[in-house]
């Protein structure tokens, strides 16, 4: 009887989970495992017969100075974006839940950039940086805008950060809105009765209670920024002279343009490990700081 019960339980579970497992396996697990397998093979050409190569690809990847340079640049980009996107997203979330007139309109308007695909948005902003802003700069005598930003290494990097903020802040705002509206009113009221002013209420009550939202937004911004490709490709193309080439774009170049498939794959695995470790640390620290209302 017990055996029969177990079989039916397993059958039920499989009935509901197997389709998802199959899709997940085909789109994530199998490609990942095959990708991992490729990193241990020699693959000089797309049609070559694969031969075992040990950890040679990883050694080449670790010695690839340009890869580490691109990774370091990506870390700088991630730091800038994670801080600015979350600060802005939090601020906007706070504003559009504070009873501002027309706040529903602002919620929709600020979220809209997230609806535009990264490639399209990159091209739109390329036009803005190359043609619109220099025209405004010339007309109004604003020196910083007079010349196209994408031809200068520092300004092109800044352009990447600005466009990313523009795209992601609205989405993060939405998550913060969910956090703000679910804040327990009684706790906030109690804080006010106890004499906490606006800043103290924010610092000691709102912020700790918003930690679950921060865990999600930090994770999303970290992951999206580490993996950035579309904006990088369409906005700066990695230029000028590869000074804004982020690590994902470098890996695509290594694998598919230089045809060093296995080395590129090994670098992708290294990137995966870096992002996974950082994300796990961030989530575990965030979870520890969560408080119950």
């Amino acid at each position: 009887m017990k055996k029969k019960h177990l079989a039916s339980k397993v059958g039920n579970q499989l009935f509901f989970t197997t389709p998802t497992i199959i899709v997940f396996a085909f789109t994530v697990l199998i490609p990942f495992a095959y990708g991992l397998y490729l990193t241990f093979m020699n693959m000089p050409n797309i049609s070559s017969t694969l031969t075992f190569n040990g950890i040679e690809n990883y050694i080449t990847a670790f010695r690839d100075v340009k890869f580490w340079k691109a990774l370091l640049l990506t870390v700088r980009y991630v730091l800038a974006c994670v801080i600015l996107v979350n600060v802005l997203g939090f601020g906007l979330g706070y504003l559009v839940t504070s009873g501002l007139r027309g706040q529903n309109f602002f919620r929709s308007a600020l979220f809209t950039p997230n609806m535009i695909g990264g490639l399209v948005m990159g091209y739109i902003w390329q036009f803005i940086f190359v043609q619109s802003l220099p025209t405004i700069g010339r007309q109004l005598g604003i020196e910083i805008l007079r010349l196209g930003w994408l031809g200068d290494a520092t300004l092109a990097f800044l352009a990447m950060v600005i466009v990313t903020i523009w795209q992601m802040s609205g989405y993060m705002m939405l998550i913060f809105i969910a956090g703000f509206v679910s804040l327990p009113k009684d706790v906030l009221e109690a804080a006010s009765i106890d004499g906490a002013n606006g800043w103290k209420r924010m610092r000691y009550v709102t912020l700790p209670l918003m930690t679950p939202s921060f865990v999600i937004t930090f994770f999303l911004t970290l992951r999206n920024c580490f993996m950035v490709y579309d904006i990088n490709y369409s906005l700066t193309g990695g230029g000028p002279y590869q000074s804004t080439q982020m690590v994902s774009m470098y890996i695509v170049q290594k694998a598919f343009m230089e045809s060093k498939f296995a080395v590129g794959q090994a670098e992708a695995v290294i990137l995966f490990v870096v992002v996974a470790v950082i994300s796990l640390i961030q989530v575990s620290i965030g979870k520890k700081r969560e408080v119950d209302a």
Partner: protein
Amino acid sequence: MKKIRTIATILAVLMAVMLATACAAPAPAPVTPEEPASEATQAPAATVDPNAKVSIIIANGKGELTAKYQAAVDAFSLEYPNIQIEQYTGAVGDPVSILDKLMASGTVVSLAMLEPGSVDTKYADFNKVDLSGEAWVDDTVFAFKDASGATVGFPFAIEGFGLIYNAAVVDNAVGGAFDPWSINSRDKLIELLGKIKASGVEFPIAYQTEAWSVGNHYSSMFLNQADDPASVVKQMTEGSFDLAGNATWNGYYETMSLLASRDYNKYGERPLGSYYDDAHVSVGKGDSAILFNGNWAFDSFQAVSGEKFGFMPVPVDNDPANPLNNKICVGPTQLYVINADASPEQQAAAKLFLNWLVESDYGKNWLVNDCQVISAFANNPNKVTNPLGGAIAEAIAQGRTMPFTTNYVNGADYFNLLGPEVQKFIDQKITLSDLATVFTDYYKSLG
């Protein structure tokens, strides 16, 4: 309830088996290692039934022609209903080629379009059929031979690059019909730029500096100092070519500095940036007069203006008798190769398709009039109507062409490794001597 559970269990087991079977599916047969990879394979004896049903896959380049390719395939299929063609075309700007995607998925591509520079490099292992026995070989001087000397490439498109000018602006500046071949020295180019400025154009040049342009195209031109560019590549690879002391190498970059200078270039103050579109709009509308690019740029020009454009040579020095100052780079830029790993029937069908493109009236008309591609074949009487294509056809007729040097370099390396270094030179982050060292070291690394 019991019934549902039984069905559920059967379904789950079935799915698991399907999954396991899919995982264990045999990999595509590997290329036999004994076969020499870089040498073209002689086609198997043609014992192919011409009426037998056969399906072939074509992987095309030149994404801008996607719809046109399908039209050609449909027309061919009407004439040869037993041959079914599935054509795939890579999107413009896609960094991963459609051929790579198809090959990676184990698909046997019968007919593939390659860039000449990739035949002996990236696709050296792509097993190519020797096409020297094909009828169309006698109709062209552009049939492509691989490193072993075998004719493996069907020249699909003839293209060229040089200094493109807006005829209306330049005619106005010189006060009459401008002769592009009169610019056969750097001083004459400077004189022309002065005249254009005097005519009221503040910046005669809109110099777009993408890595592929300043790298693959501009920075390979020095190879034309020898009749056979491959001989310079060989010397470079062997380390016996003094690049830093080479007059042609230095001359081309002196001209590049002129093109990028603040005096003449619209973007002179900040010469790098994503200026491709803006440069073409500027020259197309006549706000500037000159840029460096190839005949494919007409797609961008025609969006803003239907006026006349032409090519002039890129002067390398002040010697009007120097052949480099009197010619533009022209050659095949896209080749069809047939996969020797396809079945004999598929190879025969692919050959038939290529012959049909050259010999049939539809094929001749389609290539030149529909696609606006300059035909590499003498038996094609059609002429492209777009002014840049026309200028190239005229240069060919006048014998004012030299090899398309991009075909002699590894395109991916020039784009990814050397192009950005040339951009640094333009932005004055490195000197010409530094650039020479980068190029010398790169070629030595190939040796």
